[in-house]
């Protein structure tokens, strides 16, 4: 699944509304807030036809914890807790190569899942926080 994450999860947070998506970050910890704020505002992000889904990070939980989407869907996470969280791919015992950082309340970031599979993720600061995405 490691390879899947790297190749399928393409960072798509836009720099400006309506602009082209960014592409595969090696290290996603430094995603500028400006990029994701566009996603949070509900303005257009990425190609108009791209399906989208949202996950809220609140009360130290990913809500929904499990998400079923079709390949090509962009998932956006929004941190509603006043603490740093991450969306780190894999499990604490089996780390993948990508991690989205949500340094404070209101931070958002997105990924597009291009390949089918089951993608697990967790928060590296609070490893009991777990989420799963089923891509069909």
């Amino acid at each position, binding site marked *: 699944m490691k390879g899947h994450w790297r190749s399928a999860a393409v960072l798509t947070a836009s720099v400006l509304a309506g602009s082209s998506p960014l592409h595969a970050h090696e290290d996603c910890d430094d995603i500028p807030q400006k990029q994701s704020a566009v996603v949070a505002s509900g303005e257009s992000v990425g190609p108009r036809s791209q399906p989208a889904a949202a996950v809220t990070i609140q009360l130290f939980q990913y809500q929904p914890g499990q998400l079923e989407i079709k390949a090509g869907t962009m998932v956006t996470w929004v941190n509603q807790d006043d603490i740093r969280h991450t969306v780190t791919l894999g499990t604490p015992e089996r780390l993948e190569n990508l991690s989205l950082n949500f340094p404070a309340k209101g931070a958002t970031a997105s990924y597009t899942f291009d390949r089918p599979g089951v993608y697990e993720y967790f928060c590296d600061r609070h490893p*009991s*926080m777990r989420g799963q995405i089923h891509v069909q």
Partner: protein
Amino acid sequence: MKIACKNFIGAAVMVALLGAGYTASASAAEMNHHGAMSSDLRTGLNSLFREHVFLAAGATGAALAGRDGEFKAAAGALDGNSIDIAKAIGSVYGAGAEQAFLPLWRKHIGFVVDYTVGVATKDDAKKNKAVADLVQYTEDFGAFLASANPNLPKDVVANLVKDHVLTLKDVIDAQATGDMNKTFMAIRSAAGHMGMIADPLGRRHRETISRAFCEPIIE
């Protein structure tokens, strides 16, 4: 009127959550009395938090004295207390909050164990790391409750929990010296402090419900 109805629905949802399991003996009539329930929450949390201190002190005292069987028994009872505290949180903020809270709460107990091991082995680096982890944990705890209830400011909660960490540290340090008078004074002090955490939680919860009902808060 529209706002009042909306608030009433919100409060009714919270009342339903409260009744979901915190006080098993709560009757339907009691559930309608939000003031009494908030009072129950405060009393219940006070009791559980104080129990937490006594059981934690029992566990750390046994660990420092090398009484392994006693430590395991105390640790088991302490975990039962943790589960009850999580249930109390869940009764107010829902099952998801309960599930998220329990590992968070257990995490700080793990750090206290780390500190105790550091004291027992005279490992200053381990002690310092445990203290740093505990201080960071207080931020998590504050953020959790602030997220659960916006009337609970993160920093205020974090500082209260920081004091809990420090008072419990005093207990462990006293236990390590073997001075029983100092130890039991420290335990009393640590247990007494827990009311300073439970009371605001109960009070803020009551304020939240009262606002939902648009009613004044009468102490």
